[in-house]
């Protein structure tokens, strides 16, 4: 019996239709080859630096630090990357890999639209065809990003099945991949799905913690006491955590979307409310009912509105190495406004979940402590929705 691959503790694996098995095996072999290929790495580094604008800044949030009166706060500015979020890190890596594999077409799922925009961008740059699946509900919440993807030459397919949100977009992208494998790479946007995706996406996103480490040593001469990031599937969080996993004194804190609260059904806080299951190619924690039907989760943030979490996070939770806290819509919206006013930085509503936790956490620490919050994306896309949340109707 062939052993199950891609495990993080009990989590992970490859729970996908037989039709896709050779495709993921081919992907794994190609990745294992190219990840050690100097030419591939040189090209990727060049794209990161010259095209995406890396390294991203590690910014000392002095006003926020003084206002909260506790730990010193740094912001890892992934919002300053080209396309406005951390998603570009993974997409450039996967698109380049797909191109080397001879694929000519990228498909992707997207929630908030950030991954879709990043994929559409990479496809335009590398001359590839691109189709993005997006829940119909999300196409309404994130109309601007739909326009951006179309502007970049991609086709955007609104997904009407299920709850018409991120999980349904993933399901539809998986269905499309089983339909067309030869020329198509599924550019999965988070550290989830079947092996090797959780590993590939983590490796490409780990540049975040690699840079934080270097920048922190340069600025402070030591490692931070905690790094904080929002978690949906968990790609910016694993990117933020990865190079600190072995540094046991650095606390790793993931912020899940509690929606209207973890004691309600309108939540997407997987670690806090889910249980072990098998879905979307992986074993991990999922929000589900007693019969294993996947729950129709909710968050104000389209990017965190997902009923599962990547397998490596599930394992970091099991081992206690990382801590996962739940942040409500209200707290996230407050933090969205707070960071805008305090630092002049409008964070994505996803990233605002991490800011919200830092607002509670920093004051409990002494002034000689240092925390880093990853601002995974910029918040322009969210302005109309947040205005609506506050009862103001603005047209974009």
């Amino acid at each position, binding site marked *: 019996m062939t052993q199950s691959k891609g495990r993080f503790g009990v989590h992970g694996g490859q729970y996908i239709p037989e039709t896709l098995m050779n495709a993921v095996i081919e992907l794994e072999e190609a990745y294992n080859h190219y990840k050690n290929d100097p030419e591939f790495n040189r090209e990727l580094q060049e794209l990161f630096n010259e095209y995406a604008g890396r390294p991203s800044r590690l910014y000392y949030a002095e006003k926020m630090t003084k206002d909260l009166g506790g730990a010193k706060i740094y912001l890892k500015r992934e919002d300053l990357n080209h396309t406005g979020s951390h998603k570009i890190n993974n997409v450039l890596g996967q698109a380049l890999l797909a191109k080397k594999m001879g694929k000519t077409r990228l498909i992707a799922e997207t929630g908030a639209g950030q991954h879709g925009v990043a994929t559409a961008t990479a496809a335009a740059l590398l001359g590839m065809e691109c189709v993005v699946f997006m829940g119909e509900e999300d196409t309404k919440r994130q109309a601007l990003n739909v326009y951006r993807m179309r502007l970049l030459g991609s086709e955007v397919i609104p997904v009407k099945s299920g709850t018409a949100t991120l999980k349904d977009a993933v399901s539809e992208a998986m269905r499309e991949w089983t339909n067309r494998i030869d020329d198509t790479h599924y550019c999965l946007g988070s550290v989830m799905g079947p092996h090797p995706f959780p590993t590939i996406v983590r490796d490409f996103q780990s540049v975040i913690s690699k840079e934080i480490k270097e920048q922190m040593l340069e600025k402070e001469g030591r490692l931070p006491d905690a790094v904080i990031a929002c978690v949906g599937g968990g790609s910016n969080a694993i990117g933020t955590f990865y190079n600190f996993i072995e540094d046991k004194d650095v606390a790793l804190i993931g912020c899940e979307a509690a929606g209207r609260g973890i004691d309600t059904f309108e939540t997407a806080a997987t670690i806090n409310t889910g249980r072990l299951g*098998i879905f979307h190619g992986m074993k991990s924690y999922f929000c589900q009912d007693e019969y294993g039907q996947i729950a129709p989760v909710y968050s104000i943030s389209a990017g965190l509105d997902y009923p599962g979490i990547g397998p490596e996070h599930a394992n970091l939770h099991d081992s206690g190495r990382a801590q996962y806290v739940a942040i409500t819509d209200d707290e996230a919206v407050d933090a969205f406004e707070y960071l805008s006013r305090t630092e002049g930085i409008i964070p994505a509503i996803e990233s605002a979940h991490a800011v919200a936790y830092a607002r509670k956490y920093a004051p409990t620490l002494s002034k000689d402590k240092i925390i880093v919050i990853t601002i995974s994306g910029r918040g322009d896309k969210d302005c109309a929705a947040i205005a609506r949340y506050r009862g103001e109707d603005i047209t974009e």
Partner: protein
Amino acid sequence: MSKARIKEAFASSKAFIPFITCGFPDVETTIAVVEAAVANGADLIEIGIPFSDPTAEGPVIQGANLVALQGGITTDKVFDCVRVLREEKGIKIPLVFMTYANVVYSYGAEKFMSKCAEIGIDGIILPDLPYEEKGEFDAVCDQYDVALISLIAPTSESRIAMIAADADGFIYVVSSLGVTGTRSEITTDLGSIVAKIREVTDVPCAIGFGISNPEQAKKMAGIADGAIVGSAIIKIIDKYGKDSAGPVGEYVKSMKDAVMQ
């Protein structure tokens, strides 16, 4: 007993295998449709336990899953339905479940399989459980004599021998790329796939995905040991609702006649 019963279903003639989503549009209709299918020559029936996010299904079966779940179907109610089919309706042909790994995992694989054994389910198809992951369920399936049915796809190629050598019950040969749903044409070289399977096992092969009319069924039965039809039947049930038993019965008869030719 279960595995022997499946083997027997393929023994006398080419098999016709309908797929029916349990609880679509309600359990009473499912029972009536299964009875009609059996009376009209079905050799084995796949009973779908609805799942919220059926990633291997096309729009037709996705829709049936949704309606059934909205109607309140649960895994326990599906077990009750099978119990009625076996005990009250006297259905003797093999019955296999088709569902997703999480439905079994969430129920507890051991508890799930022991229920299957108790009510007379002979096998299970989990389209999101490929060869590499089946070890997790193999032992408990064996323990309760429930065949864990393997799928082989047009893309399986070098994997065919490995999968077939380990296959149980029957082999579900996926006719085409993509998800379930009717197709006007099936272009995969199924003959060579079945030939590769035959090199390593005599476990029966049934072809599914995309088959809707007698002509296709006849062709598939010419290549393999049987044909599986899902979406075309679900479309009939969608059209006739609670009055589906008659039309499904007629359809099954036409398909069984075709595979026997």
